[in-house]
């Protein structure tokens, strides 16, 4: 048995094995593109730490589609983001990015003291350039299934538009994870269109604590999604 929710959560456990491989192997078939840090955090808690541009961002859907349509042009341009120090109550201050194109704050995971703000900005410009390059190559190769999870209601057409942008680059697939309702039951995965699946999960992480994973159904949902989208 494996605790996949991490130490800060409850002691709920699930089988480590998830459809012929470890949970980490299952998680590595997917890559987060928002709408919060939840899926990236779930991966990291389980030993999967991908170099992924959007995993720690909250980019609005329309913006995400536009950016991908434009091959992420300008994402790594210094004039499009600012660096600031964010106060933390119980930890050293962290440099954060406010990105005008991504319309989202981003972590740098650089604490105050080791580098100046100018040095952090140049490091982040280089980092974004590499992550942009990698995202475009990965999308062209359709290396992973993209995951967009949202606790807030989203128009399915807006999510599908992100997939349309991704499929311009390569034969990509997208799993849209949302809360269950009358149309889709918890843990159900439904194919909406070629390469596009919708899945439902109880207990998606709340936005105020997006790295505190609450749902125990992620392994079941991902296994089903992987089978459906193969």
């Amino acid at each position, binding site marked *: 048995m494996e605790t996949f929710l991490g130490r800060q959560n409850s002691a709920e456990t699930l089988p480590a094995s998830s459809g012929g491989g470890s949970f980490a192997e299952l998680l590595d078939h997917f890559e987060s593109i928002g709408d919060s840090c939840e899926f990236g955090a779930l991966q990291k808690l389980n*030993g999967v*730490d*991908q*170099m*992924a541009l959007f995993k720690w961002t909250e980019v609005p859907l329309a913006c995400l589609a536009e950016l991908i349509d434009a091959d992420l042009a300008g994402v790594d341009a210094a004039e499009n983001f600012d660096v600031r120090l964010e106060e933390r109550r119980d930890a050293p201050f962290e440099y954060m990015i406010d990105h005008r194109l991504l319309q989202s704050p981003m972590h740098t*995971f650089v604490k105050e003291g*080791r580098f100046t703000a100018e040095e952090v900005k140049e*490091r982040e410009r*280089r*980092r974004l350039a*590499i*992550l942009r*390059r*990698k995202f*475009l*190559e*990965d999308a062209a*190769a359709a*290396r992973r299934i993209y995951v967009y999870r949202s606790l807030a209601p989203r128009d399915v057409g807006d999510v599908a538009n992100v997939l349309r942008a991704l499929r311009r680059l390569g034969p990509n697939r997208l799993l849209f994870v949302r809360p269950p309702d009358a149309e889709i039951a918890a843990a159900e995965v439904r194919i909406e269109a070629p390469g596009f699946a919708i899945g439902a999960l109880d207990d998606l992480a709340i936005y105020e604590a997006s790295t505190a994973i609450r749902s125990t159904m992620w392994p079941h949902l991902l296994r089903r999604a992987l089978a459906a989208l193969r």
Partner: protein
Amino acid sequence: MPANDLVATVRSIVAATLGAADPPAADARAREVAGWDSHATVQIIFAIEDHFGFEMTGEEMESIDSVASIVAIATRRTAMSMPARS
């Protein structure tokens, strides 16, 4: 560059990027080295690209999980850029 020098260079770049006092062992895996997460890997990639003068592909970036994996990339790329012997 001789193989031993290349390994030493990669170890030194990884240590400098991580702010570590000592270079990681030649057989160190990322998950065993304090502070070597995906964020650090990106910093290591651009330090390696700057030092050796090539741009990694997405597939090469994806393969990085240890000192040896970076050495393998640098070895292959530097060999490709060497002029053929007449």
